[in-house]
Every structure is written in structure tokens, then in C-alpha cells.
């Protein structure tokens, strides 16, 4: 798998293209939902795609509340979904 880098998604190593957004990486892995809503506990995923709506929040390298649409993949990144 040349041209890809390894990251950890929920503890599992996966290979993704470097430089893409975390949201694109998750979509590429077949994930469309990666968060639960606060009161109804419903599945949520990417919505506005440009940092406005805060629907796509994930924990990155231990820092919670990061927007998957804005954050870019780097080698060894640890992404935790909700």
C-alpha cells in the first residue's frame, strides 16, 4: 500500500491517503456515522463539511471535540469516534 499512511481509528490500524480530511478518511473506510446526538442518541455524521455545524466531532490524539471535516490526516494519528 504505497502512498498511504497508517492511522488508528478507534484503536484499529487502518491505511488512508495522506493529507485528506479525517471526515474523508472515515467515509473512505465506509463509515458514514461517527457520533451520537445528545438527547435522542441518534446516529450523526458529516453535514456542512466546512466547520460550521459541529456534527462531525471526533477525538484526535486525545483532544475531544475536533471537527473531522477540518482536521487533516497525519501519520500515527489516533481518531476516536463517539
Amino acid at each position, binding site marked *: 500500500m504505497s502512498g498511504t499512511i497508517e492511522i488508528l481509528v478507534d484503536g484499529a490500524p487502518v491505511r488512508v*491517503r495522506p493529507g*485528506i*480530511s479525517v*471526515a*474523508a478518511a472515515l*467515509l*473512505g473506510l465506509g463509515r*458514514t*456515522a461517527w457520533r451520537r*446526538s*445528545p*438527547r*435522542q442518541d*441518534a*446516529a*450523526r*455524521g*458529516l*453535514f*456542512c*463539511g*466546512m*466547520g*460550521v*455545524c*459541529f*456534527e462531525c466531532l471526533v477525538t484526535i490524539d486525545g*483532544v475531544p*471535540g475536533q471537527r473531522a*471535516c*477540518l482536521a*487533516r490526516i497525519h501519520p500515527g494519528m489516533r481518531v476516536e469516534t463517539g
Partner: protein
Amino acid sequence: MTQTDIAVVGAGPAGLGAAIAARRQGARVLVVDAFAAPGGQYWMQPASPGNAQAREGAARIGEARSLGVDFLTGAELWAAWPGFRLGCVVDGAGREVRAKSLVIATGAHDRPVAFPGWTLPGVMTPGAAQRLLKLDGTSPGRRVVLAGSGPFLLVVAGQLRAAGVEVAALVEAARPGRSLLRALAFPERFPEMAALLRGVAGLPVRFGAVVAAAQGQDRVERVALARWPGLAPAGTVEDVDALLVGYGFRPQVDLSTLLGCRHAHDAAKGGWHVVADPLTGATSVAGVFAAGEVTGVAGARPAWLGGLAAGSAAAASLGFGAAVAPAGLTRARRFAAWLGAVWPPARGLGALAGDATILCRCEDVTRADLLAAVADGASTAAAVKMWTRCGMGPCQGRICGAPLADALEQAAGLDPAAVGRNEARIPLRPVPVEVVAEVAGRLPDGVPALSSQG
């Protein structure tokens, strides 16, 4: 801390125009933008060789850099204080910008509409799909439905097809009529229009129709359509893995609100927008100028030219040269007015939401919650926020503002202008507490770091 003469917020066509014009007249200019590269949504970078639009953006960015315009990218604005001081976060660290004058060029984002199932994963905005395609080479789905209203749907449809995505249906609320013929008055835009039409030739287009519901188990699988207006059922589109819905754009007015600029509501301009002088971009606040979509949605060309005008006027106000009015601005705005006549803003979209439909995605506030608040006497966006928490989440009303106004108009007959809007507060975006503490120590006495809540 960075000191400059003019800080331009937003690096799309309007912001780049403002920066270039102001720098040409001799002012020091710093452009602040939240994204990793300048260009905004319209001139999104990096530019691929075959993309003339992005290459035009790259040329403008290059021109700005060669003139000596400074850029602070990846910088999210979380505060603005009088003086002017801007609070930014870059890579998690605080960064303060001080400027004698500001140009607000914060653009717009897709105008959301609440309908049953709009919170299902796989339902996104056309703008989200465009960023995925252009920046990440990633498709939002394999078989998608594009819906809403406006020429941007045609743009995104063409881009999806070029990327090999199947567009199962393009659902447009408007019914283009005789106003289309007035395109003949704008021969300079023919190549652009022809390219747009080539991109969507042969697509299954449904005019006078809307998405009534997105259905599926934990993700969108099926899309139910209805005639518009009237909402008579109009069939379903099956085996869908993405639904992209956008009814035009909403100006991004949180910064202009914080600074106390006067705003007005006009559905034809995307709703709430900054009131700015059409020739200079001057707002109601001395030293604050605005350009582009934040002054009312009109498209990229008026944004670029309006940016040139605002940047020039801002520089002149500080004693750098004389204000120059760019050629072609009036004509560009006339073209925007024609687009507005072909795709008039869809009114009455509040009828799409059922009682269980979520209006506020951050706090899971439903239409039924809203109606209960209205029955208790709430009739403004501010009151609804206190009653229901609608608008209290991290989006600060940027997403739920339009669905809330739609619902209040439909259920209680309230005019969106009278309902008002969720007033932006500091912090505009979530910010590390250390960053707030650091800035608080530097602010003059009597200037609070954070807005009082209430």
C-alpha cells in the same frame, strides 16, 4: 500579536479583492482565514490543472502575495473586540491580530432546511460534497440525490458526474419560466452558462419538487419527493447512499454581529446580512467595511468587485490613496438579480417539518418542542433559545437559525425579520480556556474577554 493597518477576514473572492486593492494603495494588509489555504469555497485550492476557476483563484492569491499581502491561514476567529482586536486560534494556540480597520468577507454557507430525516448520516450539504470532491478526492456517495434550489446545484451536479458519481435525481423547487430568456442580456456570461449546462446535460431533473423525507436505518437509503408547492407525494428514489440538500446560501454574519454592525433581513439575499454601502462597503460601524456574500448573497463576481471597492475605501479611510470604484460592479449585480429571478427564494419551507423533526441538531430540539414554546408565548429567536435551547449548541444558530425561522413563519405566521436571530457571542467557536485567559490579561479595563450570557 500581529499589528497591521487592515485586517481582512475571509480569503475568498471578496477578501482577496479587498486585500489586493488596499495593498495597491499602500496599506499593510493581513488576510485571516479559517481554512488551510486561501481561496474560499469558490476559488478553493489547490487548483488542479484542468480547473480554470481554481486557476483564476491561484492567480489572484499569487498577485496578493507578490504585492506583499500577508496571510494567516488555518486561523479560526473566536472573538473580536473594539479597537480592533481579533482573537484567533491557530493549531490550538492563541494569536491576536490588531488592525486600524477591518474588512469582513466571511462569505456564506449552505442554507439548511429541516425535513424528516435530514439528520440521518449521508444527508449533507452540496457545499460539503464539493469540499470532499475538490480537497479530498472523495465522493460523498456512489448514487446521490441533489436537491434544494439554485444554480449551485447544477455546479455540484457537474462536479459529481465528472468524479464518476451517479446523480440519481436533481430536485429543484423552482420552475424556471420566461425569466430565463433575460439571460440573453448577459452575453459575457454565455461561456460560463454553457459549461454549466454541458455538465448537467441528460441528468434526470425534477422541477417544482422538493425532498419531503430522507429514510433509512442509521443512514439515508431512500428519498421521498413531493411537488412544490403543495407537497403532494411525487414518488421515491431508491438505493441512495447520499442526499445533498441546499436551498441557496446564508451569509456568515457572526463577526459583523459581534462588532455591532447593522443587519437587515431579505430572503432574496439569503436572509440576515450586513448592511453595507454599495459603493464602498462601509458598514454602520466606523472603520468596519464588508464585501461579498456577507452583504447579501450575489455570487463570486460581485464579491470580487465589491471586495476591490471595500479594500480601496478602507485604505483611503486610513489615508492610503483615494477610493476607486471598480468597473463592472453594477452589471455584475444585475446578473445576480437575474439569477435571483430565475431561482427565487423558496418560501414556506417550514411546511416540510413534522412534529418529530429536529430543528436544532446540536441540542435535538424538535418542532414539537418549538410549538410548546410558542404556545407558552415565545415569539422571537432569543425567547425560543431560552425556552428550548435551540441555538445554544456549538453551531450558535448558524445551522438552526433558518429552520427555526421557517417553522415560526409556518406555525405562527411570524415574519422572519420580526423573529430576529440568534445573536453571536464570544467565543464564536469553541476555544481552549488557556487562549481566553492569555488574551483576557491583555485587554483594556472594562473590555470583557467573553460575552455575558443571557
